[in-house]
């Protein structure tokens, strides 16, 4: 079965640079979520999109922005990178407007971002 695809898998950037992470959800999934997992921490919700509209926002820095495109893929743009942005960034997708379908999220393999 098709899974969530994330690219790149690994990314090394210097401070103050910009990074773009891409996510391709499972086919026919209409909702995308972004999570950030720091070393030794649990995943923290950043932002989500339902049918190409932003649906919810967590503790996402103003330096970060995201969008979902017409083909449902999503991109997380990160500017003015800081050392503290080094983390594993997950994209997850789900299907359904509400209920278990919307809550049951399938995760991609993550993008490991290292800021030096």
């Amino acid at each position, binding site marked *: 079965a098709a899974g969530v695809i994330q690219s790149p898998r690994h990314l090394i950037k210097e401070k103050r640079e910009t990074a773009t992470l891409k996510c391709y959800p499972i086919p026919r999934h209409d909702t995308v979520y972004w999570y950030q997992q720091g070393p030794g921490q*649990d995943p923290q*919700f950043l932002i989500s999109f339902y049918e190409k509209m932003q649906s*919810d926002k967590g503790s996402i820095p103003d330096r970060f922005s995201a969008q979902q495109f017409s083909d449902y893929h999503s991109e997380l743009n990160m500017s003015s990178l800081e050392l503290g942005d080094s983390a594993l960034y997950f994209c*997850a997708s789900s299907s359904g407007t509400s209920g*278990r379908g*919307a*809550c*049951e*999220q399938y995760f991609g393999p993550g993008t490991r971002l290292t800021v030096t």
Partner: protein
Amino acid sequence: AQTVTQSQPEMSVQEAETVTLSCTYDTSESDYYLFWYKQPPSRQMILVIRQEAYKQQNATENRFSVNFQKAAKSFSLKISDSQLGDAAMYFCALCTPNFGNEKLTFGTGTRLTIIP
């Protein structure tokens, strides 16, 4: 606000034995879903088992089962016949359906070690 608490940072079990991981949660909603995710050393987030709050019957997936105590807001994971491949970080997660705003709230995780 909803919270998830995992009070066991680390657990270990002998191969082929049974182990139970604890999770408690708090939410003011009556409709919600609970999940256990497994994160092996590869750091992929893998959905292990799900439970709908409106269902009294405990969910079971092969060697994995849950003990859902709604009144006590407890959701423990039992792994039977533990195998070396079960070694991972396990996260308990809570989701409340909200029409596109279904973010997962995670506990801090329990690291499970399997002793050969």
